[in-house]
C-alpha cells in the first residue's frame, strides 16, 4: 500500500470536508431551515437513503457492469463477479 498516496488522499478529503462545513456553517446561520419548514423534506421522495436495499441491489449490478464505482454509500461484501 502506498502510504504517501493514502495520506494525500486523506488530507484532501479532510480539507474538502472542512471547507464544506465552513461554507455550510456560514450559509446555515443566515439561511437555516426551521423544523416547522421541513414538511416537504420529511417525505420519502425527498430522502437520499429511503430505499437502502434497492440501492444496494442497483449498485451491485452497476459496479459489476461498469468500470467506475462510488458515490452511493453501499460498500460491503465483495464478490468474484467479473
Amino acid at each position, binding site marked *: *500500500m*502506498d502510504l504517501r*498516496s*493514502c495520506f494525500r*488522499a*486523506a488530507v484532501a*478529503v479532510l480539507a*474538502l*470536508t472542512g471547507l*464544506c*462545513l465552513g461554507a*455550510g*456553517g456560514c*450559509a*446555515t*446561520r443566515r*439561511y*437555516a*431551515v*426551521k*423544523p416547522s*419548514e*421541513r*414538511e*416537504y*423534506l420529511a*417525505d420519502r*421522495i*425527498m*430522502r*437520499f437513503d429511503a430505499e437502502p*436495499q*434497492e440501492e*444496494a*441491489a442497483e449498485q*451491485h*449490478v*452497476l459496479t*459489476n*457492469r*461498469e*468500470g*467506475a*464505482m*462510488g*458515490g452511493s*454509500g453501499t*460498500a*460491503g*461484501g*465483495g*464478490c*468474484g*463477479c*467479473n
Partner: protein
Amino acid sequence: MRLQLRGALVLASAAAVLLAGPGPVRAEGDASARMTVFRESSKLKGNDGITVFHPQVDASGTLGSSLQVTAGWNADIVSGATPAVYGPVTGPDAISSATRFTDTRNAAHGGFDYMSGTVSLSAAYEYAQESDYKSHAVSVGARGDLFDRNLTLALAYTHNFDSVCNNNNTNVQGPLDLKPLPTSKHCFQNQPDVVTEPLDIDTLEPSLTWTATPRLLLQGGGTIQILDGFQSNPYRSVLVGNQHRTPQENEPRYRQRYAAFLRTAYALPALRASLSLMGRAYRDSWDVRAGTGEIDFQKYLATFLLLRVRGRYHQQTGAVFFRTGDEYRSKGPAGQYWSGDRELSPMHTILFGGKLSYLQAAQQGQALLAVFNELELALKFDYLIYGLDSTCPVGTDCGPNGDRDHAVLLQVAFALKF
C-alpha cells in the same frame, strides 16, 4: 425461483413478527424482501448470455431509544455462458465459442446503530461465499447532525478481507506462461493444483448533506478505495501476440480508485413530486476515467401509488493496458498486463426505467394486519444499453462481450414497517 421468493417473504414476515413482539411493549422495525432478475442476452446463436437471480431479505429493529440492530441475507444465482478466451473477432484466430457456467453466491450481514442525540455510530459485518471467492467485510460509520440539523456529516469505512481461488501458477517462468483456472472444483480444499490469493480492499466514504431551503437538499461526497491483491478473472485467457499465446488474464495487483459526487433533490409540492439530479466523476490508477449523470422524477399518482422514472448516462475510458482482441494479436500486450474485461474497456451505458409502488399506511388507531404501520409493494423495470467504444474493424463488435448490447432488470419488492 418462486420458491426462493416465497421463502424470502416468509422469512421477512417471520422476522417482522418476532421483532414486533407480543403484548403492549413493542420494538419498532421493518422487514423487506426483494427479488431482482438481471438478464443479459447475446446476439450469437447458441450463446445463452447471463441470467442472475438476486434475492434479498433484510430486517431491522429498535431496542430501546438508542439502539437499532439489522440483519439480512442476499444471494446471486448465476447461469450463462462467456468466452473463456478473449481474442480477435476477425481472421483464423477469431474467438466465437462460449463456456457455460453456473454459480451461487450467498451473503449474510448483521450490524447495529447506536444513536445519541444528534450523533450516531454504526458497525456491521458481512460474510459472502461462492465456489471460488470468499469475503469478510467489516464496516464502521459515524454520522452527525450540525447547525440545527441543517448539515449532516457522515463518514463510513469498510475493510474487505477477501480470498480468491486461482490456478497454481507458482512455478511459471513469466506472465505469458500463466495458466487459467479450469474449474472451481478444488477451490478452498488445500489441493495442490489451486492456490488461494488474498485481496484486501479499503473503502472510505465521506459525505455532507445540506438542507439548503425548505424544498432543496444538496449532498456531496466521495469514495476512496484501495485494492491490494489478485483482481484478474482466474478463468479468462487473452490471446496476445502473433505467436498466438493465450496466457491467463493478468491485471495489476494494486489499484486506487477515487470518485466524487454531487446530488440534489428538489420538492415540487404543487405536483406532489420531487426531482433529483446526480453527477459523479471517477478516476483510478489504471487510468480509467468516467463521468456519470442521472435524473430521477418521483410523483404520487394517488396517496397510495408512487411512480418513479429515471434516466442515467455513464461514459468511461479504458484502462491503460486495455486493447481489443485484434490489437492484442497484432501489437501484443501493452506492457506486462492484459485483460478481456469489458468493464476496463472504453464504453458507455444508458439506463432508463421506472418503478411503481403501492403504499398502505395504518389509519389512526388501526394497524395493518393488526401489527404493521406501513406496507409497500413495488415493481421496477430498468433497461440498460451498453455501447462499446473500442476502435474496431468495420462491421465488427470487437470489444469484450461485444455480442451483448443490452440488459434488462426486473425487480419485485415487499416491505413492512411496525
